[in-house]
């Protein structure tokens, strides 16, 4: 059987493999053996390397290696903690939460480039930060990251309105004052906010909010998307759009150090062996574009890529007995890394629907008949986290108490169904569930749900829709139940709880859920800084949702990655992107593996 699998794999990868091998061998030819080089795969080419206009994950990965942001997540600590990077310290926020001072480190320099005087990169100041944020506000740039600052900073929305009045991009005057953005001196930025924004630092970890030099934008014009000039640990050496991106160590990068603290167990795993040392360790990074999974997997097994996620088709080859590496992988010295993602998937109820919306026992009955553990075993080999509530375990507000009362209880569901029938006034008619896709996976999920509903005599019709139709029906409220979920870009419950706020009905609240107590509690928590009281309020919000049974929360995702034994200090992250700076490569070990396999 294994032979057959390998044969199929070989046929599928052969064309792409040829190209990948060619690219990698060419890049190998140029490499000094003493250099520390890392090879990583990207599944698509970056849409832009200009922080203001980039939007894809691939772009964010590259941008965050070249540009540093004011803040970022700690590499080792879990739960995720935000730490200063370009900033000297965490923001100094006034008592009313409306003014904050961000100080940046002194002596940070842009990398050398022809756009600067004499080709020497100049020092970074807060004026670069102000200029970069104005670029995001500039309507002419069509920045996909404008949502970060929308209705946040005093005067920035007005600046955006002003850019609308300019006929040409070149007419825009960046020296025009924005009331809420003031450079106290070259190293201190005062930000005045329209309302308290306690989650600001999480948003300032995004690559889009970094500092870009005006000289670079003026010099390169529209081609700035191909010429990233940052202060980060790497500079762009070469970008062959259809094959690879080569990054080289930035000789001017002088402020990064490997973290000295981590989570429990990091020391034992050797992740603190380089604590306090200057980073980056790697001299050169290659991001090789490999669109298909089979060639990427094959190159990883050949030792041509240092790490890889596990394609669905190869999961059984890599993982056995739930969450352990197969003997084949162990023999190769491959290590398995798991990390949780900040997401939740559910079956949501339309609270405006006359059948499910007005019948809480019916919704509760449905929540008790779904065997989530079987769902996870069937469709993900048991590799997801069962959801007991909305907030995923990655977040600080996660409530472990909820896991003590498992929801699967068919007997209770049958009792609740009797109550549901009384409320409805007879047998419950066939219910409809909207599925976001028509592929095999969705059809298998649909079959599973139908069987589960059948346990209490509920007939379920599944409506498989393509993405535009699915969202159109959700937005119009033309449904009873839907299978969906949310993924947060920050480890804060705020991002996912806000979907249930009555004000979000036109912007994400597809449950059409209105609850004054929930709104009040959420509003109170959303302007608080991180503290135990806020955590309790978020948990209270979650409890209200569970009591009202607005949705059946099914699972939280867990990601699995593999890395070779020569990759040191490797700790994958769900939220951080510029990770090559922390990694070390044992090139001799890699050569020995490549010779063997």
């Amino acid at each position, binding site marked *: 059987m294994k032979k057959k699998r390998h044969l199929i794999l070989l046929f599928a990868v052969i064309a792409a493999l040829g190209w990948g091998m060619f690219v990698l061998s060419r890049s190998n030819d140029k490499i000094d053996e003493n250099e520390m080089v890392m090879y990583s795969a990207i599944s698509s080419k970056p849409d832009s390397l200009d922080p203001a206009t980039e939007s894809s994950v691939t772009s964010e990965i590259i941008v965050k290696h070249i540009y540093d942001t004011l803040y970022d997540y700690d590499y080792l600590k879990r739960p995720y903690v935000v730490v200063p990077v370009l900033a000297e310290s965490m923001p100094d926020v006034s008592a009313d939460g409306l003014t904050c001072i961000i100080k940046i480190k002194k002596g940070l320099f842009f990398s050398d480039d022809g756009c600067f005087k004499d080709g020497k990169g100049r020092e970074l100041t807060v004026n670069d930060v102000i200029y970069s944020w104005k670029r995001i506000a500039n309507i002419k740039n069509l920045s996909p990251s404008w949502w970060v600052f929308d209705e946040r900073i005093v005067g920035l929305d007005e600046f955006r309105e002003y850019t609308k009045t300019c006929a040409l991009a070149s007419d825009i005057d960046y020296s025009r004052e924005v009331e809420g953005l003031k450079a106290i001196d070259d190293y201190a930025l005062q930000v005045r906010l329209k309302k308290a924004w306690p989650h600001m630092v999480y948003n300032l970890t995004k690559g889009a909010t970094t500092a870009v030099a005006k000289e670079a934008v003026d010099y390169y014009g529209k081609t700035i998307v191909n010429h990233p000039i940052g202060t980060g640990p790497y500079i762009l050496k070469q970008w062959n759009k259809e094959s690879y991106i080569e990054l080289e160590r930035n000789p001017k990068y002088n402020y990064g150090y490997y973290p000295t603290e981590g989570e429990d167990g990091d020391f034992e795993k050797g992740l603190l062996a380089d604590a306090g040392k200057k980073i980056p360790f790697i001299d050169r990074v290659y991001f090789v574009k490999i669109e298909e999974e089979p060639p990427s997997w094959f190159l990883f097994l050949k030792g041509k890529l240092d790490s890889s996620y596990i394609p669905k088709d190869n999961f059984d080859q890599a993982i056995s007995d739930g969450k352990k590496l197969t003997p084949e992988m162990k023999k190769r010295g491959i290590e398995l890394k798991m990390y949780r993602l900040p997401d939740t998937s559910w079956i949501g109820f339309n609270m405006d629907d006359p059948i499910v919306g007005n019948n809480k026992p019916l919704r509760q009955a449905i929540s008790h008949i779904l065997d989530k553990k079987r769902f996870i075993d069937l469709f993900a080999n048991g590799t997801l986290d069962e959801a007991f509530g909305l907030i995923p375990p990655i977040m600080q507000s996660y409530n472990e108490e909820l896991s003590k009362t498992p929801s699967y209880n068919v007997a209770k569901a049958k009792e609740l169904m009797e109550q549901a029938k009384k409320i409805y006034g007879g047998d419950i008619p066939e219910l409809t569930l909207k599925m976001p896709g028509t592929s*095999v996976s969705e059809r298998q999920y649909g*079959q599973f749900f*139908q069987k589960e509903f059948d346990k209490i005599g509920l007939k379920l019709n599944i409506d498989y829709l393509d993405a535009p139709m699915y969202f159109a029906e959700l937005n119009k409220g033309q449904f009873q139940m839907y299978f969906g979920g949310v993924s947060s870009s920050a480890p804060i419950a705020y991002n996912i709880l806000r979907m249930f706020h009555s004000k979000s009905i036109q912007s994400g609240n597809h449950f059409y859920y209105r609850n004054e107590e929930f709104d009040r509690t959420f509003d109170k928590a959303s302007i608080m800084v991180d503290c135990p009281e806020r955590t309790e309020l978020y948990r209270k919000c979650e409890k209200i949702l569970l009591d009202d049974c607005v949705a059946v929360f099914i699972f939280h995702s867990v990601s699995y990655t593999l890395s070779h034994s020569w990759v040191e200090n490797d700790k994958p992250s769900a939220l951080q992107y510029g990770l090559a700076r922390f990694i070390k490569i044992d090139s001799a070990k890699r050569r020995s593996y490549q010779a063997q396999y």
Partner: protein
Amino acid sequence: MAEERLQLEPIEGRSLWSDGIRKLKRRKLAVICFWIIMLYVAVACYVQAAQWSGDYWPANWDVSTGEKYESPSWKNFCGTDIFGYSILRKVVYGTKISLKVAFFASIISLLIGIPLGATAGYFGGLVDEIITWVYSTLSSIPYILLILAFALVLKDKTFMGAKLAGATTVYLAIGLTSWVDICRLIRGEVLKHKQKEYVFAARSYGCSNLRIIFVHLLPNFFHIVIISFSLRFMSFIHAEVILSFLGLGEKNSPSWGAMIDSARLDLPKGYWWEMTAATLAILVISLALNIFGDALRDSLDPKLKAKG
């Protein structure tokens, strides 16, 4: 030559049909294929009857008969799928879907193609030009794309109070898009026959155009319709498989196309039995229909008879 003729025994006159059937019976392979087709039809009818009369085998395909992905064994002859459902039961159930779709799609295409083709050929002139323009336009669009477009448009629409979904959408989409070939064929035959003496005779007796077309003309080339039906039946089964594979077919019950689509993800993991079972089911019926259709054409086509 004249003497040879005198030595011949008198032959009893036989119609085209009885002659054709007699010839068909002589072809052993065609007879075997006929019974294979009949077996599929019987299975499809049985599944439909089982569904109407109650929840018993094989209508209850959605019952676990083993663990997930069990390989073929005596207990589960064709193995099981991700839910532990029997693949054999799914194949049997899929027979009903495929044959139902192919049958109704054939009927719809014949009901559209024959009258249009006959009208165009018989009346000629502007009527012919309009019909020819319509089918030329339709045939210029790639067949699968056209079916896909129709299937998407018809999906979840309501027709006379009934919601169009699953197999109904599929056979409507196929039937409404595949009448062009039969229409063209019938038009050609009518053009050829309408100048013959028997048509002039019928007209001189005062028969109406409708009567001439359907009572006098059509029986003379109905064998073409039968041959076309048998050959097109197979292509409609394939079309159903393609539509189901693309997610536009039956959703809530198994069909061969849906099985192949689902098995696509299982194949790299080494679970080959669902793909094999569905493919074999399609292969056998396709082969049987092809061989039988060819034999039918050889037996009924007077031109081939003359050559032979």
